[in-house]
């Protein structure tokens, strides 16, 4: 979405920059004053910690004693000597592949349902959105754990045993918590759906296109920028999932490391085992991987994301 709206707006705006106006300096000064909270915040709360973390990733630092330079040892140890690291990578990738498509699929289906709804849309939209507001909280994650624990509600209803106590199922229970929070992408889908001109559907039905055909040939292509936006956003979030797994597994990533997500292991190395240098190195690898995955998504998007404005050019 950012790509569609930003590009045409910034190009004309950029032209005005070189034009000198009387009082430009004064305006510049005022701008800096108004920006200062943000600039300070970004520098003190984001850039500085990032720089420190990059430095720490080349050290052995136990939080209590001064960091001690070890060069690339954290990185080599991570890739070659730590089986648990690779288990955390495996769990995270599995989770991303399961949770993101399920969540987006559900968000789209519900958005389609809401769009065609005549009455009570406001109520259902709020009702479906509510989990997104609540879901990220620790309390809901704890409720989730109680639901899926052995002897919990789900166990009693379905007799499936406790999901969170079985290595094959625990990850799925956590994914379900994410899928349930489909409200945010749903609202965005709904907005996207309402942008599609109704004439397209009218023309298609005059031509005798079935509903399914209309969905595939009109809705999906017209919605593809929004799908892409949601996909990028949710994928990035999924890579960084922490709270639900932390609460559901009691902070351990169990059972048997099945929900040991990358961030959970990072937390474990940093704050439980006091290897802050190692945790920093892990954080930087995660940053690079998320960057790479996003770049790949952008690259492939050229083949399937359709911008209506392209037709006008």
């Amino acid at each position: 979405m950012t790509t569609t709206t930003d590009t045409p707006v910034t190009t004309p705006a950029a032209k005005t920059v070189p034009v000198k106006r009387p009082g430009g300096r004064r305006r510049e000064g005022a701008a800096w004053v108004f920006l200062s909270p943000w600039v300070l915040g970004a520098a003190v709360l984001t850039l500085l910690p990032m720089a420190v973390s990059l430095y720490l990733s080349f050290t052995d630092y136990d939080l209590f004693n001064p960091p001690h330079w070890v060069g690339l040892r954290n990185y080599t140890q991570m890739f070659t000597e730590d089986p648990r690291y690779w288990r955390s990578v495996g769990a995270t990738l599995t989770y991303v592949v399961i949770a993101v498509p399920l969540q987006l699929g559900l968000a789209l289906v519900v958005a389609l349902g809401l769009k065609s709804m005549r009455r009570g849309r406001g109520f259902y939209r709020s009702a479906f959105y509510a989990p997104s507001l609540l879901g990220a909280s620790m309390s809901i994650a704890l409720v989730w754990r109680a639901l899926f624990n052995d002897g919990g509600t789900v166990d009693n209803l379905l007799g499936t045993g406790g999901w969170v106590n079985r290595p094959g199922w625990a990850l799925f229970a956590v994914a379900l918590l994410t899928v349930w929070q489909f409200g945010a992408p749903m609202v965005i889908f709904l907005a996207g759906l309402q942008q599609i001109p109704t004439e397209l559907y009218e023309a298609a039905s005059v031509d005798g296109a079935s509903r399914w055909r209309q969905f595939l040939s009109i809705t999906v292509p017209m919605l593809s920028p929004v799908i892409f936006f949601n996909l990028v956003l949710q994928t990035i979030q999924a890579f960084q999932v922490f709270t639900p797994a932390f609460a559901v597994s009691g902070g351990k990533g169990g059972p048997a490391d099945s929900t040991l997500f990358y961030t959970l292991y990072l937390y474990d190395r940093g704050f439980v085992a006091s290897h802050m240098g190692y945790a920093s190195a892990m954080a930087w690898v995660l940053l690079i991987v998320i960057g790479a995955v996003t770049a790949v998504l952008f690259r492939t998007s050229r083949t399937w994301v359709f911008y209506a404005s392209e037709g006008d050019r």
Partner: protein
Amino acid sequence: MPGNRTRKSWRPRIAAATAVLVSCSLLAGCSGPDGAGGDGGKVVLRYTWWGNPDRAARTQEAVDLFEKKHPRIEVQTSFSGYDAYKQKLATQAAGGDAPDAMQLDYRMIDQYASGGVLLDFAEQRSALDTGEFDAGLLATGKVDGKQYAIPQARGTETVVYDTAQWKKSGVALPREGWTWSEWADAMRELAERTGRPGATDPGQSEDAFEVWLRGRGKSLYTEDRRLGFTVDDLTRWWTFADKLRREGAVSPAEQTTQLDGTVENTPLGRGKAISDSNWDAPSSGFVALVPDGVTLAPMPSGEDGTPGQYFKPSMFMGVAADTGHPKESVQLVDFMLNDPDAAKILGATRGIPVNESLRESIAPGLKDFDKTVYDYQASLEGDLDAPPQAPPSGDSALQTTFQRDYDQVSYERMSPREAAEDYVTEAKAELRS
């Protein structure tokens, strides 16, 4: 040059704005921890501990009394289960925000003291009386000759069992000097006759492993802070536990994985097993969970009768090195450890007090579970070997690694030997650093 002039006039304003912003954030950051402002000059201390609700209620009562005796001091308390406490405290300590007074485990002292988190009690000698403490026990809170922590009480491990269920099963009751193989047989019989596992799977517990290991004449760590056992030893222990689990004599993996250091989440606490092994004082939590009460029995010994269990300073109190109120914090420590009224309230909730005159004075007045713990410890007096020295820093992380590696065994994703190799490799790396 109008441009220059405007710039000049802006500069101080920007500086002023920046100064305001920075000082706001500094103020916000500073007023948090010590909280000494606005409360009419009251000193506010933060005191944190781990434990069960029973300990919480009694600690709060003792703290209320402290506040009554020191009207100028307000104590904010917080507690949680051991696992959560350990993580939270490490995070706070790392951020320079350790609570003023804190409960510490034997395993934490080395790390926290060497990291400069703890106050040397010598700096506040006048506020703390250690005259009634056994010198040997007091020394367990020393690192490099400095007193960073004061032992609060002494504890020992125990097999705690559901009295009624065990008696009803007809299986011979635990007796002093029983061996690990007798214990294993009892677990099998219990499972057979009651349909419930006899105990929590001991494989996940580094503490139980230590008792077993000491029964074989070895130890977790050597005096020069290296690993005191081999892959073979650990493989044998995990094979032993693994076999019992497969037979259904001890709790299944789904139960064991829920352990988090609270009695509520143990199989015994959930009514799904007949016994548990735990430290004696926290076992008081079972009283509220097991309807017909629990009994404490000694831990099993080695096959040749060597006792594995020992009396350990069960927990310590320490004060943050950067507390804003060192004197008041140490006063709180002194009160919790030396005040006769506090001792009466606290009883044996953290173990039997180490203050010797208090121990004698409260003994006759002990009731309920406190008396159980006191009698249990008395029954072991003189039978146990000396405690090991405080574990090295890396042990705090290894405790978790131990559970995780055994998880791989109990969910049958690794053989006992593979998991043992994994553990020993990580342990060597931890202890080297």
